[in-house]
C-alpha cells in the first residue's frame, strides 16, 4: 500500500493545475484574481510566482470576454484552464459556452475541437444570498457538446483536471464552495489522474440507493450513517460525471435495492434529479418498489438569513426521511 497524503480539496485543485502546467506548456490559467490575489478561493496561490504572468493571467471583470477568449485559445491549439469564479458569474458567459464551446465541433462538421477546461465554484450554504448561491450544474449538463463533472472528494479534485485537459471536448468542472476546506487522502506518488466517465459507489447497501454529487455527498453519507442505525443500509452513489450520466451504474444499483432517492442542490423543477428520475423510470421501472424520491432545494431565491437558507437546502434529515418514505417506514 503506497503511502497517502492528507491535503485539502483546495490543495488538490492547486496541485492538479500546477502538475498540468509543468507537464504541458499549452496549459495556462486565466480568470479573475487568479494571479496576484491567488484566486478567490486561494486555489492558485503561488502559481503566479512559479509560472509568471504569461501563464497565470489575471483578467478584468469580463466573464464573457475572457471565457470566450479561453475558448478561442483552445480552438487555437492551447489547453486553457478558465476559472469562472463562481457559477453565478457564469451566466454572463453562458452564451460563449453554449453557442461557441459546445457547438463548434458539430457545427464545423468535426473540423474544430475546443479542448478547454472551465472550472467554477458552485452551490450555497455560506449565507451569500440569492445572487451568489446558485447551483446550476443542470443548465450545463443539459447541453450536448459539453462534458460536465463534479469532483466531490479530494481524490477526484486532484485527479479529474488532467483527464479533462486531455479530452478534446470542453469540460466544465464544478467545485462546490463548501468543499475547499475539506481534507482528504491522495496517493503519495502519482499518477493521480482518475476517470471522468463513471459514477462511484461511496457506500454499499441493499435497502435503498441514494444518488448525489458534489457538495451534497457529505450530507448524504451522514444521512446513510443515521439510517444504518435504524438498520437501513443504503448504496450511496456519487455521480462524479453529470454529462454524460453513468446511467448503467445508476440502474444497476436501483435494480439491486428497488428504491431510489436523488439528492440535488438544484431547484426541483427541471433539475438534474428530474432527469435521473426519468432515466430510472425508463430503465428500471420493473424493479421499482416505491416512487423515486427527490431531495432538492426549495423553489425560492436563496435567502440570506442562516435558518432560512438551511430550510431551503437539502438537509441530512430530509434525505433520511425520503429514504424512509421509499421504505414506507
Amino acid at each position, binding site marked *: 500500500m503506497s503511502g497517502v497524503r492528507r491535503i485539502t480539496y483546495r490543495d488538490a485543485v492547486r496541485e492538479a493545475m500546477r502538475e498540468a502546467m509543468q507537464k504541458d506548456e499549452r496549459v495556462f490559467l486565466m480568470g479573475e484574481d487568479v494571479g496576484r490575489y491567488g484566486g478567490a478561493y486561494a486555489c492558485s496561490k503561488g502559481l503566479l510566482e512559479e509560472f509568471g504572468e504569461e501563464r497565470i493571467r489575471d*483578467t478584468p*471583470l469580463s466573464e464573457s470576454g475572457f471565457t470566450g477568449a479561453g475558448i478561442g485559445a483552445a480552438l487555437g491549439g492551447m489547453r486553457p484552464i478558465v476559472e469562472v469564479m463562481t457559477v453565478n458569474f457564469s451566466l454572463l458567459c453562458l452564451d460563449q459556452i453554449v453557442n461557441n464551446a459546445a457547438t463548434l465541433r458539430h457545427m464545423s462538421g468535426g473540423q474544430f475541437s475546443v479542448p478547454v477546461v472551465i472550472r467554477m465554484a458552485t452551490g450555497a450554504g455560506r449565507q451569500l*444570498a440569492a445572487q451568489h448561491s446558485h447551483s446550476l450544474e443542470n443548465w450545463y449538463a443539459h447541453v450536448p457538446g459539453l462534458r460536465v463533472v463534479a469532483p466531490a472528494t479530494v481524490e477526484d479534485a486532484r485527479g479529474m483536471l488532467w483527464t479533462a485537459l486531455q479530452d478534446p471536448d470542453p469540460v466544465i468542472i464544478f467545485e462546490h464552495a463548501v468543499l475547499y476546506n475539506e481534507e482528504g487522502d491522495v496517493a503519495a506518488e502519482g499518477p493521480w489522474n482518475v476517470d471522468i466517465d463513471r459514477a462511484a459507489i461511496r457506500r454499499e447497501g441493499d435497502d435503498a440507493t441514494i444518488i448525489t454529487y458534489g457538495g451534497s455527498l457529505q450530507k448524504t453519507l451522514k444521512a446513510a450513517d443515521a439510517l444504518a442505525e435504524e438498520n437501513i443500509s443504503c448504496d450511496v452513489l456519487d455521480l462524479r460525471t453529470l454529462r454524460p450520466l453513468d446511467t448503467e451504474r445508476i440502474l444497476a444499483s436501483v435494480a439491486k435495492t428497488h428504491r431510489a432517492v436523488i439528492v440535488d442542490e438544484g431547484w426541483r423543477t427541471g433539475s438534474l434529479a428530474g432527469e435521473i428520475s426519468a432515466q430510472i423510470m425508463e430503465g428500471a421501472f420493473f424493479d421499482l418498489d416505491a416512487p423515486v424520491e427527490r431531495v432538492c432545494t426549495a423553489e425560492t431565491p436563496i435567502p*440570506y438569513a442562516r435558518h432560512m437558507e438551511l430550510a431551503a437546502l437539502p438537509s441530512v434529515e430530509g434525505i433520511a426521511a425520503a429514504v424512509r418514505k421509499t421504505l414506507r417506514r
Partner: protein
Amino acid sequence: MKDTYDGVDLTAEHARELAHQMILIRRFEEKCAELYGAEKIRGFLHLYIGEEANAVGVMQALAPDDNIVATYREHGHALARGLPASEVMAEMYGKAAGSSRGRGGSMHLCSADHRFYGGFAIVAGGLPLAVGLALADKMRGEDRVTCCFFGEGAAAEGEFHEALNLAALWKLPVLFVCENNGYAMGTALERSESDTDIHRHAESYAMEASVVDGMDVLAVEEATRRAVSKIRAGEGPYFLENRTYRFRAHSMFDAELYRAREEVKEWEKRGPLVQFKPWTIEKALLSASDYEEIEGEVAGAVADAVAFAEAAPWEPVEDLLKDVMTPAEAKS
C-alpha cells in the same frame, strides 16, 4: 480642498449634516466589522470606509424622488439615502425587520420608500437596470434622475458598454457614478484596464463626463449638482468618475496581498473626514465640540441600531416561499 464650491450653500447646518452622515457611515461600518468577527453578521461584508464622501456628496444633489441603483458595497449609500440605521443593521443580522426582511443581507439592501433599488452583487449587473428605470421615467414624462453607482471594475464588463451606449443613444436621465477606488477586488486598475482614465470611456458614446476628487465631499456635491442639472435639462446621461480609495480590504476574506501598507497610509492622510473636519473648523462652520456632539449622536444611533437588530425577530421558516411570486390576492 477649495475655498468655495459652486452651487453648494456653505452654511453651518449643511456642514453639520455632511459631517454627521460621513461619521455615521464610518462608525456604523466599524461596528459591522466587529459584529462580523462575533459571527452576528455572516456571508460577505464589503466596507466603504474611506469612500464615505462619494455617497454623501452625491445624495445631497439628488431629490427624494430620484432612483438609486447601488452595488454590494452599499451601506454608505443606503444610510446617506436615508434608510434607517436600525433597518440596515437588522438586515445585516438577517432579521425579518431588516430592510429586505432579512433575505438580502449586506449586499442587497432594498427600500421602495427611498426608491433605493438595492445593491447588485454581479459586477455591472445594475447598469442595464438603471438605464431601464430612466427609460420608464422618460417614457412616462417623469422628471426623475436615476443615479447608478459602480466601481471601476465594472468598466471591464460587457454590460458597461451596452448600458452606456443605450443611455446615450436614447438620451436617458441616468447619472453614472464610477467610484474608482483603484482595485477591482484583488486586481489593480492598471492591470485590468488598457486606459485607466475611466471617464474617457464615456467619450466613445458622446456622453459628457468629468473627474472629481472622491475624498472631498464638497467637490463631489458640487460636481453632482452640475451633472444633475444638465440631466434634468434633458441633455441626456452624465458620467462622473470619483477618484477615491478604500481603507479596508475588499471584503472580510481578503489578505490584501495586492497592495502595500504604505499606499493605504498615504491615502488615509487624505481621508474624507481628515480633510473635511479641519476645513469646517477653519471656516468656522463647525467647532470641535460640534464634532464631539456628532460623535455622541452617532454612537447612540449605532448602539440603538445594534439593539434593534439583536431584538428583532427572525423570519418564520413557513415564509420560505413567500414572495417568490406575487401572491394571487395581490394581483390587481
